[in-house]
């Protein structure tokens, strides 16, 4: 019983997060200006991180948590560097 509940919930959550990633990448390709593309990339990172944690719940392994942590940190640094580039024209002054 609980296996069926967990399996269906994990499947639906994976479908929803994959749809959110597809929408974010659509905005990243279509976005009218550079800041829209950067926010699309940030949303893509966040949703991929949630999808990895959901994979971890589905398989019962803890190793996906570390991949999600690394992904969150890299996403933050990448978005801050891109925003700084938009603001100043260079990243490290």
């Amino acid at each position: 019983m609980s296996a069926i509940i967990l399996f269906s919930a994990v499947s639906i959550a994976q479908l929803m997060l994959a749809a959110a990633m597809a929408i974010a990448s659509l905005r990243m390709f279509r976005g009218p200006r550079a800041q829209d593309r950067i926010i699309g990339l940030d949303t893509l990172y966040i949703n991929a991180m949630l999808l990895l944690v959901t994979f971890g719940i589905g398989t019962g392994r803890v190793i996906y948590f570390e991949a999600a942590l690394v992904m969150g940190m890299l996403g933050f640094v990448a978005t801050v560097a891109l925003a700084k580039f938009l603001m100043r024209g260079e990243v490290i002054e």
Partner: protein
Amino acid sequence: MMQSAADMPVWAAIAVAFFLLIGSGLALIGAIGFLRLPTFYERIHAPTLGTSWGIGGVMLASMIFFTVSSGRPVFHELLIGIFVTVTTPITFMLLARAALHRDRAEGNGNVPDKPNRSQPAGEDLGESDPRKG
């Protein structure tokens, strides 16, 4: 999956499924709003739905699942939750300032003008010259 999930009590499975569906549903709603809202300054609000309760729901589900399935308290998902909650306002505020700076520099309409202050320029990040370091 089924080896560790089959001997799980039903209340824990229902709680994990509930928080997982709340988190991923809010992430999806945030992405749809991010696609549909018309201007950039409205669009920047939508993905925060996924970074607040989207992260919170999925991390709560993961914490409940691993706590029940391994039989000891597991709290390391709090690390991701706190990190994302702290860093998302920083990135979005930097991006909104960069967008405001670009719109002012190009003279696009619909953005407020520079505040006219008597203090020396460069006090506010949005009004400094990009050429000067």
